[in-house]
């Protein structure tokens, strides 16, 4: 039995997406800048993909700037907006549970002289809107708060955040990487100026992401050169990747509601099943304002890596925090922001479900968790007498 529940770290490319991409590797391999039939074919393919992605978030084609990843989109969105619109103000306000790419970009902008303010979240991971209103002022150039956190699953009240930003004339960026494909996104009703999306989170290929840039908004480009993507992102376009992201966005839009309902049911069964069968286990994040596919659990007295390793032996793949930060050996900054102690953060597991998971998978995990936890707790010097 193999149960992959690490969709936040990586997702398989959907077979239909791969099928759509295939012709663009070796047959329709033209450069859209070329002035001949292969070039024109590539231009048409890009236009279609741009439309598909735009449609997922109710944007216009021309508002989609393709990049190589969500990380690049976050870098371009934040650095590009801050440097270009510096005269609007010197303050940048972000939540404390943003992805490491947003936080590290803010650190860098801090070194460049911007004043960075972090808005805390409550113990369930929801941004404190009161604090936000205090921190956003007329000197604020940019506010960035993610739609949802992929690690603890918490969904933020993004529209309210956008309103606060706009009241003060600040631009609003949101990282929708983890949310896209799981909850509906609409850039106009949500009042978004800049939005980050990743292809892989939609079951599209790695190596492609995009930044939504509201019509009329200009950014200072991060990568300069031939002037592709309206001059905001140079480099010959990755057509197979872009075609793949387009197809993935189209499929995501079609299946969103049904899949969200299905995953929410599996998610709730998994949470309940583990809480009931494993003593001293707790849910991290918000019980309801939560991505349909996210289960983040804390198992006291033991450490996450040894949990992952034990589960891997049983054919269950999970994660212990954002996969992107695993190598730092630091406990997740997201969990610490909830007020968890270091040792509590160390013992947390992230199960992220996806298309391939079914009820059998959930039951398999529920069945094996108690034994795995028990074995590790028996080895741990922290485990209280009654749990050994």
């Amino acid at each position, binding site marked *: 039995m193999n149960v992959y529940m690490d969709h936040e770290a990586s997702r398989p490319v959907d077979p239909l997406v791969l099928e759509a991409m295939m012709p663009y590797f070796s047959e329709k391999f033209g450069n859209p800048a070329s002035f001949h039939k292969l070039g024109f074919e590539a231009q048409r393919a890009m236009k279609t993909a741009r439309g598909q992605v735009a449609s997922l978030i109710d944007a216009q084609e021309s508002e989609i700037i393709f990049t190589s990843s969500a990380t690049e989109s976050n870098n371009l969105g934040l650095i590009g907006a801050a440097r270009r619109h510096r005269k609007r103000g010197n303050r940048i306000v972000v939540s404390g549970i943003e992805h490491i790419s947003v936080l590290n970009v803010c650190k860098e902008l801090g070194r460049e002289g911007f004043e960075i303010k972090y808005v805390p979240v409550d113990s369930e991971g929801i941004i404190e809107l009161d604090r936000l209103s205090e921190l956003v002022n007329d000197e604020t150039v940019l506010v960035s708060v993610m739609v949802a956190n992929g690690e603890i699953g918490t969904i933020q009240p993004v529209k309210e955040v956008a309103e606060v930003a706009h009241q003060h004339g600040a631009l609003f960026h949101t990282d929708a990487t983890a949310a896209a494909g799981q909850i509906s996104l609409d850039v106009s009703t949500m009042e978004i100026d800049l939005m980050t999306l990743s292809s892989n989170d939609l079951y599209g290929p790695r190596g492609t992401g995009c930044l939504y840039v509201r019509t009329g908004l200009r950014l200072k480009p991060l990568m300069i050169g031939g002037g592709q993507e309206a001059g905001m992102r140079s480099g010959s376009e990755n057509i197979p990747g872009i075609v793949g992201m387009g197809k993935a966005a189209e499929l995501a839009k079609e299946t969103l509601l049904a899949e969200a309902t299905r995953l929410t049911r599996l998610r709730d069964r998994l949470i309940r099943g583990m809480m009931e069968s494993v003593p001293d286990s707790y849910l991290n994040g918000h019980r309801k304002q939560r991505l349909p596919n996210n289960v983040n659990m804390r198992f006291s007295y033991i450490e996450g890596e040894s949990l992952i*390793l034990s589960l891997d032996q049983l054919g269950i793949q999970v994660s212990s925090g954002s996969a992107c930060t695993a190598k730092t050996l630091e406990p997740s900054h997201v969990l610490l922001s909830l007020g968890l102690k270091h040792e509590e953060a160390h013992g947390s597991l992230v199960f992220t479900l996806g298309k391939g998971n079914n009820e059998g998978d959930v039951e398999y995990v529920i069945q094996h968790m108690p034994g795995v936890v028990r074995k590790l707790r028996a*080895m*741990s010097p922290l485990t209280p007498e009654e749990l050994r």
Partner: protein
Amino acid sequence: MMYTEKVLDHFRNPRNVGEIEDADGVGTVGNPVCGDLMSIYIKVEDDRISDIKFKTFGCGAAIATTSMTTELAKGRTLDEAMQITREKVAEELGGLPPVKMHCSNLAADALHEAVTNYRTKNDGEGVS
């Protein structure tokens, strides 16, 4: 960051897990805040480690290195036990991922602490 088969074996089937109620020496290193805490318990007979047990809170490497350390130490003289280094333990496991060499490979220290703990107590007794 991949573990060797040897590491995985010691993780899956850790040797000498447990506590010794009336241990002659105990050594504890690490800190749960950092994600690693390990205790080694020894019984000593004729200046030799006659029994050894451990308890570890930590990652796979932490568990495997403690397990391996107890296996290397069992039956050895105290002086021999003091010669068991972190490097030796890692080597016996077929190597550790670089990042783990420094952060989770603390078991040799726990062993040395257990021996020192035993000696201190016994020197203490001898002197008193």
